[in-house]
């Protein structure tokens, strides 16, 4: 598995994925603290406001800005992650590069896990880079938050991402790239939207893990641990399903 992991790492390096994806998260992370802080100036400069217009800006706490950044990651960041992940196994089968790997004594476990671990590390870097950047400007402009709460916020966000990538890689093992991509995009970026619209009716939803994780910043949510268990259980289940699917679909590699 180390060998395949090395290969995944090399691919991330050579495709510069290891650079631009964290950069995207940094950009998303700094946008909220900066735009909110300078909102008055921005409006004054380009807002084209009528004379005498005045507006009271809400008093924002540091935690509000971190949560706003989280919202950014959940939309654009998540979409990009899902788009990259959905092709990881299926593309290699479709273009035939998998053939030369599959004819060797390589286990389904190694194939699946090398992809999962590689993406887990990449998303960890993204999480740290994104929240780190957000925290940096929030700290400079608004003030700090407790270090423990901040670390826990990142940890729970990463746990959520881990579930997203494990599920998406499993889709990639099960189906072709286009189907896997469609299902994953409907399930995750769109699912979050749906959950935030009608999700008031339930508390235990994987989609809410990131928000509950952010609750460390203010008052701890009662539903955090329950939701966390669901996410972990689901991640383990889809990983097992994915390992099985990797073997089941081996013969579909283009020869």
């Amino acid at each position: 598995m180390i060998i395949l992991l090395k290969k995944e790492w090399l691919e991330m390096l050579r495709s510069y994925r290891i650079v631009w994806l964290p950069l995207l998260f940094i950009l998303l992370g700094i946008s909220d603290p900066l735009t909110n802080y300078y909102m008055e100036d921005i409006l004054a400069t380009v807002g084209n406001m009528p004379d005498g217009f005045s507006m009271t800006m809400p008093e924002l706490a540091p935690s509000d800005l971190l949560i706003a950044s989280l919202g950014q990651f959940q939309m654009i960041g998540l979409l990009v992650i899902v788009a990259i992940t959905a092709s990881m196994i299926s593309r290699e089968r479709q273009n035939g590069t998998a053939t030369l790997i599959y004819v060797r004594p390589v286990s389904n476990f190694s194939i699946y896990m090398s992809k999962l671990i590689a993406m887990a590390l990449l998303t960890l870097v993204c999480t740290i880079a994104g929240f780190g950047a957000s925290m940096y400007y929030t700290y400079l402009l608004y003030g700090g938050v407790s270090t423990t709460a901040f670390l826990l916020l990142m940890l729970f966000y990463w746990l959520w991402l881990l579930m997203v990538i494990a599920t998406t890689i499993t889709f990639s093992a099960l189906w072709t790239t286009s189907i896997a991509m469609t299902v994953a995009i409907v399930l995750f970026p769109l699912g979050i939207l749906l959950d935030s619209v009608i999700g008031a009716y339930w508390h235990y939803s994987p989609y809410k893990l990131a928000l509950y994780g952010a609750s460390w910043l203010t008052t701890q949510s009662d539903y955090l641990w329950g939701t966390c268990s669901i996410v972990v259980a689901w991640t383990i289940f889809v990983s097992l399903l994915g390992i099985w699917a990797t073997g089941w679909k081996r013969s579909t590699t283009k020869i």
Partner: protein
Amino acid sequence: MIAAHLTKQFGAHIVVNDVSFTLEPHTATALIGPNGAGKTTILSMLTGLLKPTAGTITNNDVQIGFLPQYPQFYPWMTVLEFTEMAARLSGLSTKEARSRAHEALSFVGLEEVLTKKTAALSGGMKQRLGIAQAIVHRPAILLLDEPVSALDPFGRRDMMSLLKKLQQTTTILYSTHILNDAEEMTDQILFLKDGALIEQGTLPSIRARYMDPRFAVTFCEQADAQAFSTQHQVELIEKTVFVPMTSYPTMQHLLSFLSTTYAPIVKIEQHTSSLEEIFMKVMSL
């Protein structure tokens, strides 16, 4: 390696139908048949990528090297990196993998482009890299799908000489749709048509069965040949008639037979079927 009663069915469509053969150690076997005969499907089953619908494959757990018809490499990897990874995945240690990769790549003549990305390789070089990754772990059995059909005449000659060198240490099975390729390096030929094995044997034995020895007698005038052909019921092509050697086994027999005709004859020669004619004959069975 022994394949017994291999059958592969996709839905209602039978792609490979009850195919059995044995690959003896250090022999080269050619799998011949027109496109769509099931050659690639048989190779896929032998590599383990496809499960046969019925039948068994016995290979005593020896390592296999496989070259697909169009080998695909990760474009962002270098030639050496890919070959090393292939060796490592086949169970070699890091150190061993490195030295074997160098060895395999110089064997196929790619030692000049070790650090080149595979995306930058020409078709012929890709095929050589394909061979290198297939032999880097020194497999006992080498399976090659159409190893030369995509190459130009020079590439083809290089590839055949590489394969001939490999034949001394390895059991080789390769598919092709060109019989002339098979002629250069074959101990056994398997003829495949519509998924079924219709003929098999060594090249000399197949030749003996299908060469259909005849005397070709060429007349001076087309009319004479025509008349001779209708009179004796023999095949005619332009001014030449073909007299089967079964009826006249030696030249003397033929000459005494020909002495009955006074039409001028310019040439008499023995004629055996070319490989292409044999191929067509076997395929029309």
